[in-house]
């Protein structure tokens, strides 16, 4: 195979999982995610892995729970309506302290919504992917190459913190193709002494469970889990900054919206407007430190999303009313253009 190859985002997600040592994939087709499952169905038999098309999304996520509890690197993928169906399982995975990688190639919602790209599942991913007090790590790639890198990170982070990790993609990133370099790295899967891998009468049996009979026990476990979340907030924030050093108008966008916003920032700079871009790579934990550090030069922030405005809440919480935080979005399967984002930047520039 040539050194550089052309990959579709969805294929890259699947191939990267295989490279990361994932040999258990449980899926169910839904546009615009289906190529993840399709690629897995072709590749898994060749690498001694399991591709299983479950009878539903609910079944698939519970198979992930089972495989992960047994210590395997397991993955499932879907698109927005399918992720809603998986929410029960996500909560159980979080409550059972097992790692898992879940891909959401977002499409328009609510309900059946539509098959065109969207970023309207931000709240679901970062706030309420299921019931109960819990968090998922959420990673947001914006190129096909980055998908490969982040899938590897997702498995590693999941194992490290024993929790679900979501790759939040969208229909545009999933369907487009870009040249990538596949760099086969040696994979170190850590020991999982907690896993249900068979005690062989040599140790006490392990228990993977999310049911706690006594309320004080559950409260103590949740508090301990939230200490872990605090550590993650401290250690794992990631973002990419572009031209933010002197930026008066800081655009904040992730995924495909960040690609569009970057073009708009370039155009604004050509017109002498000091614009920059913060591109969150982790959506939970949110890259608060970067936003705070740019409040020095920033007169205003502009959140660009393919939604009615969801991530903008996080920026507003961080900025705490000290700077103007605007929002521009297209939704329902519509994709903003660089020209539209530039117009918003100019509007803000006119007002400051």
């Amino acid at each position, binding site marked *: 195979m*040539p050194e550089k190859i052309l990959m579709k985002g969805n294929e890259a997600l699947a191939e990267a999982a295989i490279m990361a040592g994932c040999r258990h994939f449980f899926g169910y087709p839904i546009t615009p995610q289906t190529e993840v499952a399709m690629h897995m169905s072709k590749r898994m038999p060749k690498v001694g892995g399991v591709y299983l098309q479950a009878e539903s999304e609910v079944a698939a996520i519970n198979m992930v729970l089972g495989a992960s509890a047994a210590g395997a690197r397991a993955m499932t993928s879907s698109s927005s309506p399918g992720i809603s169906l998986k929410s029960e399982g996500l909560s159980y995975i979080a409550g059972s302290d097992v790692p898992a990688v879940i891909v959401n190639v977002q499409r328009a919602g609510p309900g059946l919504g539509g098959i065109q790209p969207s970023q309207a599942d931000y709240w679901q991913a970062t706030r309420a992917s299921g019931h109960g007090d819990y968090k998922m790590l959420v990673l947001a790639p914006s190129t096909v190459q980055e998908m490969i890198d982040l899938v590897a990170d997702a498995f590693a982070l999941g194992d490290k913190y024993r929790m679900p990790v979501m790759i939040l993609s969208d229909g545009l990133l999933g369907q487009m193709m870009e040249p990538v370099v596949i760099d086969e790295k040696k994979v170190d899967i850590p020991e999982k002494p907690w896993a249900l891998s068979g005690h062989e009468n040599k140790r006490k049996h392990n228990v993977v469970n999310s049911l706690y009979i006594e309320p004080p026990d559950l409260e103590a476990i949740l508090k301990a889990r939230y200490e872990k979340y605090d550590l993650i907030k401290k250690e794992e924030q990631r973002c990419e900054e572009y031209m933010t050093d002197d930026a008066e108008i800081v655009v904040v966008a992730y995924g495909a919206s960040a*690609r569009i916003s970057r073009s708009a920032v370039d155009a604004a700079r050509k017109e002498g407007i000091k614009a920059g871009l913060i591109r969150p790579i982790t959506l939970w934990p949110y890259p608060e430190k970067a936003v705070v550090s740019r409040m020095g030069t920033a007169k205003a922030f502009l959140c660009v999303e393919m939604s009615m405005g969801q991530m903008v809440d996080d920026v507003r919480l961080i900025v705490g009313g000290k700077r103007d935080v605007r929002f521009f979005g297209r939704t329902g399967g519509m994709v903003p253009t*660089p020209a539209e984002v530039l117009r918003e930047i100019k509007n803000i520039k006119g007002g400051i």
Partner: protein
Amino acid sequence: MPACSDALKSAFFCSSCDNGIIHIRIPISVGPNGLTVVCGHYGTGKTNFAINYAINAARSGKKVTLVDMDIVNPYFTSSEYAEILEKEGVKVISPSFATTNLDIPALPASMYSIFDTDDEVILDAGGDNVGATVLGRFSRKIIERGYEMLYVTNMYRPMTSDPEDSVMILKEIENACGLKATAVVNNSHLKELTVPSTITDSLQYAKEVSRSAGIPLVFSTVPRRIAGELPADECFYPLDIHVRTVWEKGEPIW
């Protein structure tokens, strides 16, 4: 190396055949009232090729109908480029719900007009055997009308980077649609990273696909911006790049 049919030779204005490789002066399209099926693994660049092919045919004075038969994957299909195509005088027949938010795989009744027209007809098939299955429903009528079927392959796509794998995908497509490919189009590229060596490095691959599939290599495609930098002793088909993402479109935005 297998040789091209007379139809393909005349269609592409072949000037000579050397070792079975056709030399092309001006790429136009398959002969009068021809029907050309464009098939291949998904993501090889079928749609971008089909759009170029249709526009070139229309510019040569032909009446052209392009049928988007990709009802398997609703993203980056030729229906999205209907405006460009129609401006060039190409008639576009799209799946009933193309470019909408619906995922309903249905072809319109107007599809049947291709068997009742003098237009040059280009069928842009969906990817792989799954996409080509749709063709099966029309295969009898396509065979009756007469056709060429171009198999588009790209060395830089992981599933077709090995000639044998590529031929395997071709065989799956042929089995699914009941039609036989008549020529190979080498569309090896790396999108915006394509340089002349990207293409020259793929020529041996393309010839192996052709030999192993037992059908001629009609040409290799090349982005127009570097068309002049390729060797003169091989056949190349210059392409304009239509299929792009919104941030790649490069239109002046200010």
